[in-house]
């Protein structure tokens, strides 16, 4: 490894193990990443041409765009050269660590040996003093001191009666750096596993619907192609009731081939069905700022419902390795199929009942002659200056229904009932009709992910944290204490030497403290 031979393989090895290469890769990854944060990734032409207008002016922007596009900067983190840089980085890290590890291993496992007076005085931390106490007494204090500092001392006695106590600790901490480096490789491996064996998709699922197909981006199709292929495949799938084998059969295709063409169009089939039972938003007070939103999802496997869970932001659902994350929501285009869920309480204070009805349907309030007809739905009701109802947002921020109430005799009354405003629920005759929900017109936006590599990544994160703690906060410490009898003065010559591969000042203070104790004990 450290040999100076000049064979090609040695040259390659030393190239990949060099720190200079590491520095060059650091710089290249860093600088190109900066470009990647300025150019919006995977964005439309318009977006980035606007960015370039700002940066290089209108005249140059189109050609700058062409150059950057040709170099892959519009989707650079997936470009071949960026991925190559990451691979190079990993290889460099691996080779560099393998190159150095044997030497570190030897240091970690080398037993500590007595030093002798001369060498002790060349150590980075050292002290020497004379005590008027017999060597044996000094030795026992020294042993106790070393023990309380966490050192297990070995003893060596020389012919002239001089005794050396010596010990080391945390030799293994030298491996911390390698654990750090290894973790980076583990994390990269986890990322690769995720790319190879996982997928990223999304799903907008209206209340009351279920599906076994989720949508990802297809890599090589234009939007138009993608849409038409998707439409025909989804059509085939729908007429087969979601069953891929049957859809394939109907299309005279092998199921595997059918699955493959789905995947090429960015359609990812799941082994099970997922359905959205209900979607809810909770707001901060009477504002339109959402405090929480959640969907009740049910997984149907082999025709049987197996799991139901309220999925919220930060609280996903997991089934068979596939994760469903709450990410957005919205209104479906066609609002006419929604069902109003009303709670109806007659004026005499009897128990409330629930009514479910569509636009145009009506019901009678129990115990009265009043008929309530559902006339209209507005997902975001507001009134303009002239008092005309308008819809003020694209979301269901203030759902309200207009009802017409008649008692069969006089002309009816028309009234807006808003879900968020209970005071609108009171009818003229004293009964209340509350709008609990308008079901079936919202969709839940889910991110659907499968990433079998994520546990590898987490493992790498844990070892990275451990490795850094060891690398920065622990050190390999060695200490020697030499006790020489001094015949003439019936005393002892005491020498202390110590070294640590890191954080020396702190260890120096600890050794000083020990020395002080020995000196005190010797007086």
């Amino acid at each position: 490894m450290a040999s100076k031979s000049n064979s090609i393989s040695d040259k390659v090895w030393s190239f990949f193990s060099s720190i200079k290469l590491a520095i060059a890769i650091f710089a290249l990854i860093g600088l190109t990443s900066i470009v990647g944060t300025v150019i919006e990734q995977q964005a439309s032409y318009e977006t980035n041409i606007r960015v370039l207008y700002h940066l290089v002016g209108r005249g140059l922007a189109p050609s700058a765009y062409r150059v950057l596009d040709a170099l892959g900067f519009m989707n650079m983190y997936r470009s071949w050269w960026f991925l190559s840089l990451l691979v190079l980085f990993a290889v460099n890290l691996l080779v560099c660590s393998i190159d150095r590890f044997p030497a570190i291993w030897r240091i970690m496992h080398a037993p500590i040996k007595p030093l002798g007076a001369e060498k002790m005085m060349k150590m980075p931390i050292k002290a020497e003093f004379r005590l008027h106490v017999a060597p044996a007494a000094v030795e026992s204090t020294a042993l106790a001191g070393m023990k309380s500092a966490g050192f297990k001392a070995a003893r060596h006695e020389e012919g002239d009666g001089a005794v050396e106590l010596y010990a080391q600790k945390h030799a293994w901490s030298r491996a911390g750096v390698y654990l750090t480096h290894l973790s980076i490789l583990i994390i990269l491996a986890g990322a690769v596993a995720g790319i190879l064996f996982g997928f990223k998709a999304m799903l907008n699922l209206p209340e009351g619907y279920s599906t076994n197909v989720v949508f990802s981006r297809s890599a090589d199709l234009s939007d138009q192609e993608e849409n038409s292929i998707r439409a025909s495949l989804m059509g085939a799938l729908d007429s087969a009731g979601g069953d891929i084998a049957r859809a394939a059969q109907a299309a005279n295709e092998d199921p595997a081939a059918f699955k493959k063409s789905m995947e090429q169009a960015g359609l990812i089939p799941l082994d099970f069905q997922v359905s959205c039972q209900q979607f809810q938003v909770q707001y901060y007070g009477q504002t339109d700022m959402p405090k929480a939103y959640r969907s009740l999802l049910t997984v149907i496997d082999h025709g049987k419902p197996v799991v139901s869970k309220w999925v919220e932001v930060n609280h996903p659902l997991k089934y068979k390795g596939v994760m469903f994350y709450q990410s957005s929501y919205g209104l479906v285009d066609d609002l006419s199929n929604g069902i109003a869920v009303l709670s109806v309480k007659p004026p005499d204070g009897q128990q409330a009942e629930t009514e479910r009805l569509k636009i145009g349907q009506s019901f009678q309030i129990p115990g009265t002659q009043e008929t309530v007809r559902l006339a209209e739905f507005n997902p975001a009701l507001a009134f303009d200056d002239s008092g005309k109802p308008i819809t003020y947002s694209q979301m269901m921020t203030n759902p309200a229904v207009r009802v017409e109430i008649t008692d069969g005799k006089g002309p009816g009354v028309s009234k807006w009932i808003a879900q968020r405003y209970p005071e609108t629920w009171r009818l003229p005759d004293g009964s209340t009709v509350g709008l609990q929900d308008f079901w079936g017109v919202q969709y839940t936006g889910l991110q659907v992910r499968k990433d079998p590599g994520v546990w590898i990544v987490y493992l790498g994160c844990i070892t990275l944290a451990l490795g850094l703690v060891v690398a920065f906060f622990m050190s390999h410490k060695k200490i020697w204490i030499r006790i020489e009898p001094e015949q003439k003065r019936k005393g002892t010559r005491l020498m202390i030497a110590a070294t640590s591969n890191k954080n020396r000042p702190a260890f120096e203070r600890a050794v000083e403290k020990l020395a002080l104790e020995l000196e005190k004990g010797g007086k």
Partner: protein
Amino acid sequence: MESSLFFGLSTMAYILAMVVYITYIGFRKKAIGVSATGLTVFGFAAQTLAILLRWKEFYQMSGLGLLRSIPLTNLYESLVFFVWCLILGYLIVEFRYKNRSFGAFVTPVAALALLFISLSGMSTQIEPLVPALQSNWLLAHVTLSFISYSAFALSFSTGLMYLVVTTKRGEGAYMFWTVTLGVFGAVLLAMVIDFIRFKGAGLAPGSEAFIKNFLFKSTYKNGETSVRLLSYLATILIVFVTWRYGGALKKIIEGFKLQPATLDEITYKSVAIGFPIFTLGSLIFGAIWANQAWGVYWSWDPKETWSLITWFIYAFYLHARFLRGWRGHKISMVAVMGFVAVIFTYLGVNLLLSGLHSYGSQ
């Protein structure tokens, strides 16, 4: 809001402490030094109390649970927390190294940040949390990130001071620090001008609308070509003045009587503390949180990418120092660049890049 009373008190205490620390450097009387420390400790206590009170207010208002309500959710609160960590870090350094002079450098940073908050008319309202931010991982992520930012800020100031006291005009490193400091000052000034001029608009700086409509609109992005030109000229002038009169700053900092070796050691120590905390808090916890919220632990968005760049710069610092034995100017410049990347991660990504990406900004 009783918390604002204590914020006011801490701002005043830090400003006074700044004056007293500078006086202390002039006279070197122990009593003056002790009162400077006393003021700082007082300001720190008031600020701690203010943060706790705000936490309580937020908790009572949001109904989200104690940990979820930690006041660290917008630019204002994060700046306040940053100042708090910085002062804490400084006090530790003061007691460890028994040197007060450095306070004359740190308290102005704290006072400036707090003054910036009140001058800019930044929204100090308690804002409700959007669902994605309601996560304990986020709490750990933000808290640790700011602690590491403060450690890096410390290494930045000692690294910069090292460069100031050890370089002369004509050296590359001198050029480096004067240009860095000059550009820093010019951009800060431009932002303060925007904030003051558009204060009436009632938008929070850092909010998307503010960035889109106002940021740098008084200067670098003004409609008038002449104003734009003037702004760039002024920036060059500021850089030139810093370069020409950098020696004066050197005199001042030499007055602190800090050994360059001590500065270098504090720089390294702060990086060595900041690096693991940054790795754990920013990168790892950020990734875990993102994975909980969106199902992707890493998506190469500009904020993530900039934290990675920051991480690389500090990894570079450590390797250059340990493996290539870099010392002195070279290594201090890396420390300064690391913090420039931190600032860009924290502010620049929001202020500059999102401005660049927002639609219809021109």
